[in-house]
């Protein structure tokens, strides 16, 4: 009943269940690298497109496990009453959330690796070792705000609706945040909208890692993301306490 032991068991159970759900595994792991291979490498018009898109597709890759793992997972477990039984059991909320977070980060890493491999071997992306690592770390951390968004969706929606809403949020964040197409190619109105979307700021932070020539206000983007994450965390904590 030590917390570390509970967390270990909880994470094992969460990973096992996730691995047994092909409808979760396939889109979250395959979509990012397939999309990146097609749009970032095969169809890219040379120059540094493959490098630019690696930064943004990395954010895309971690969004899937975070938004779907938390959003659909929590909605289902809440709806089935499983979460009530957990709250009655002598297991702290930290182990439930912690296990989900570790699982999300693991799947986020698994989604990132093939994207990076495609970038390096097929896309001829060449970066100093430190930049590869910093980029990977940035992408992994990007899973945190998306996990909180997933958690909030899971509390707000029933499981059926959560699948639909998670998809809309996932695709909306990808498109409007400029993860597929650079934001500079969008009309002005959409560039304004992007300011309110976490994926935009995370993409800008990631881009600043690989491209130090273009001036970017990294401090501002980091500040916005930290503020968004803090607000999301407070909302998630309130939603947890408000459970019926």
């Amino acid at each position: 009943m030590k917390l570390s032991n509970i967390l270990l068991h909880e994470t094992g159970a969460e990973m096992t269940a996730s691995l047994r759900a092909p409808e979760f595994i396939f889109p979250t792991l395959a979509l990012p690298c397939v999309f990146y291979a097609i749009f970032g490498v095969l169809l890219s018009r040379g120059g540094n497109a493959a490098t630019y898109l690696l930064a943004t597709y990395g954010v895309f890759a971690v969004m899937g496990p975070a938004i779907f793992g938390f959003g659909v997972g929590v909605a289902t477990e809440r709806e089935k009453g499983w979460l009530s039984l957990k709250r009655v059991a002598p297991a702290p909320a930290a182990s439930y959330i912690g296990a989900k977070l570790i699982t999300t980060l693991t799947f986020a890493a698994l989604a990132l690796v093939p994207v990076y491999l495609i970038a390096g071997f097929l896309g001829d992306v060449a970066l100093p070792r430190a930049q590869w690592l910093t980029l990977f770390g940035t992408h992994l951390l990007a899973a945190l705000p998306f996990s909180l968004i997933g958690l909030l969706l899971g509390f707000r929606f029933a499981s059926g609706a959560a699948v639909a809403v998670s998809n809309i949020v996932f695709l909306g964040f990808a498109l409007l945040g400029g993860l597929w197409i650079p934001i500079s190619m969008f009309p002005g109105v959409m560039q304004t909208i992007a300011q309110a979307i976490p994926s935009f700021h995370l993409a800008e932070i990631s881009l600043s890692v690989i491209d130090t020539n273009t001036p970017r206000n990294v401090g501002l983007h980091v500040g916005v993301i930290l503020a968004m994450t803090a607000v999301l965390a407070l909302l998630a904590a309130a939603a947890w306490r408000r459970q019926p």
Partner: protein
Amino acid sequence: MNHPTIPAIAARALHKSFKDTHALRDVSVSIEQGQICALLGKNGAGKTTFIKTALGLVTADRGDVQVLGEPAGSLAARRELGVMLQDVDLPDLLSAREHLTLFSSYYARPADVEAVIQMADLEGFADQRYKTLSGGQKRRVQFSVALIGQPKILFLDEPTTGLDGDARRTVWDNVRRLADGGTTVILTTHYLEEADALADRIVVLSDGRIIADDSASNIRNQVGGTLIRCETALDQSTLTSLPGVKTIETSGRLTTLLTDDGNAALGALLQRDPTLGDLTVRKPSLEEAFSELTQGAQH
């Protein structure tokens, strides 16, 4: 906190309203350690709200509940509980054995997973994914999860709904054995024979209030009287005038009288109706007592 004189559950003046319905009104009850206590009541009587309050899932508007002297919902209280709730499903993609292993990590002195699999009769499907199990098998897995922590208090909300006769008896045997070993069991049930067969004590809730709290036999006696069932030629008004008659029900050719004075009513009946046939005389069942009690409380 394990002192035997501390009540397993002590509820004081609990009130809880949801919008415009009063789910609990001034509910005070103390359940001793080692008892099997059945909560009876119709749907909406407040049974599940009471249990959820004792578990800390629902916060009462007024009053408080303690579990072995600890506040309901606190970690210390939850460590002593094993719980089987209604309308709760476990994650689909894990097996019973995986669920039990996970839950056993929550407790300081968990039972052996294999032993619980045997006890709850899960052999044969312990390694199948929960999703693939039948309704009755799922209930048994949920029951086993309630047992894995070797809890001092077991909450069973409708434990045998959806179970066939054999599976129900397995649950009953387990409940009795655990109670013999000192576990306190609090159960709700729709099956009055279940309460009658298992419970040391029956608490009847109606409309959020406790309307009876006693042993099964005392509750039967509290309603009291004698049921006389027969085929009779006498009309309604004559039957009403017989000694002590409280209610008369007719179904088909049989008439059932509930009377406070069985001997006198029977004598009068035999005397006035020489054609009387198909006569049975017995004490009301718990079910009949229960229906009498809850109807009385609503008027």
